[in-house]
């Protein structure tokens, strides 16, 4: 019994490790800006206020960036997952030459240093006129998200008992029925998990977002955070940055809370034999 209590204590320590910095973020987001100028560093606010949130949303820098972030991440994720679905299906079901090469290549690209592409993309995007546009960010995101999607999804697809489709056909289902009633429910969790991981990736990017945008037109939230200023020159921007941070963290926390088990499966699917 003592043993298991010890592990529980360790578990509580890990939970604290995870949430302590978040509490700090939330505390800062609710602090009145005067708390920070006063040079009286306390962990909790002297008074809780929602003003930082309304201020942040009233600035086009943030509201527009939030829209850009959601739009760009959603489009990139959708495209990436759809394309990856076909690729992963082919990898799981067909035997073809270069299959292994394709997977290694996908992994190689996923590990590619993004900073090595920033210069040439910056120059190319300017000359073809897609610098500072949604599409200018979606293309590099796809490039890095797609290998990630293919890798994760093909690990899931390999575990699907494809013979079930045949069995359904034998039992008298039409091929459309066999597909929608048997294959889709089996494949959906993998596709879904891949979508979440891909979305995290696009949502998180900073390097491309700050290098390939220059105005509110396409700047995403991570890049916008770096440009935040206080309501006036004499006020600290800290509470605003944190309020904006809370907003972009909410979708992450919701996804994690709801799909915890699946995300773990997706993260580790490529790493060990499933």
């Amino acid at each position: 019994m003592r043993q298991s209590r010890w592990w529980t204590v360790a578990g509580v320590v890990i939970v604290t490790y995870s949430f302590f910095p978040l509490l700090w973020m939330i505390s800062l987001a609710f602090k009145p800006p005067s708390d920070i100028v006063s040079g009286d560093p306390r962990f909790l606010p002297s008074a809780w206020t929602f003003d930082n949130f309304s201020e942040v949303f009233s600035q086009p820098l943030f509201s527009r960036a939030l829209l850009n972030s959601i739009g760009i991440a959603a489009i990139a994720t959708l495209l990436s997952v759809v394309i990856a679905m076909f690729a992963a299906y082919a990898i799981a079901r067909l035997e073809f030459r270069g299959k292994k090469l394709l997977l290694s290549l996908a992994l190689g690209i996923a590990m590619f240093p993004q900073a090595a592409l920033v210069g040439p993309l910056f120059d190319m995007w300017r000359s073809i006129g897609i610098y500072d546009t949604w599409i200018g960010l979606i293309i590099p995101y796809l490039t890095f998200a797609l290998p990630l999607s293919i890798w994760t999804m093909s690990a899931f697809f390999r575990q699907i008992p494809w013979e079930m489709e045949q069995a359904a056909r034998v039992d008298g289902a039409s091929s459309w029925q066999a597909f929608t009633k048997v294959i889709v429910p089996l494949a959906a969790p993998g596709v879904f998990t891949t979508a979440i991981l891909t979305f995290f990736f696009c949502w998180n990017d900073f390097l491309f977002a700050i290098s390939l945008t220059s105005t509110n037109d396409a700047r995403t939230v991570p890049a916008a955070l770096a440009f935040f200023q206080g309501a006036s020159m004499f006020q600290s921007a800290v509470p605003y940055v944190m309020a904006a941070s809370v907003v972009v963290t909410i979708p992450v926390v919701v996804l994690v809370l709801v799909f915890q088990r699946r995300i773990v499966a997706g993260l580790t699917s490529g790493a060990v034999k499933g």
Partner: protein
Amino acid sequence: MMILVTAYPLGYAVVLSLFNYRLTDPTGRSFAGLDNYGVILRDPIWWNDFATTLMITLITVGVELVLGFVFALVMLRIVRGLGPLRTAILVPYGIVTVVSAFIWRYAFAIDSGFVNEWLGLGDFNWFGNRWSAIFVICLSEIWKTTPFVSLLLLAGLVQVPEDMQEAAKVDGATAWQRLYKITLPNMKAAIMVALLFRTLDAFRIFDNPFVMTGGASDTSTISLLAYRQNVTLVNLGMGSAVSVLLFLTIALIAWVFVKGFKTDLSRVRGDS
């Protein structure tokens, strides 16, 4: 298409790196051969940034592996509350890196932070000194990525045969002996994958130093240097040369792992 978007710009970078080329002076484009590389490799800034990147990589990956392993052990042993624990551990993983960087920066900053107050350090400027700044950068990086490492290691840990552990216990092996002789060798594959992923990832670190110091106090990394040359100074010739060197370094690290340490990714992945 993936290859098009990575290989073409990379090829373009190689070409650009051979020229003197600034966007502010488009007509002054001239062939420079390998001069850009010569300038960079003789410049202490490159070696400084290289050393910083290397240090951050070694510290973060080392700490993450040990801490991640401890977390994985706890997750393996814990009976009740595994679900909430995994949820908690996934939150830092999902947090936007820039947000994590700001959280830690404000915690250590003189005006907004509580750390100096709690540790009784007065108005010590963490970001004014190279080592303390690197410490905070590593802290943010470690906080965010340890969960990923621990989940990878947990996946390896569950494959270690329990009966071998029991047998060793009966034979009188200590906990440390069992760890070194049974647990670690049996999860070598998972450890190598985590090590490879994290090393390559840590070596291209950009977000944390950008937000915390912007590269001041000797904390610039190679990615930051490439960004500054290309985007801030629009010195595309020099910037591209930095990009190519960054790519070569990463490729070299990957090659050492795959060939030197025999990290067989396809086998690990379970392809056959």
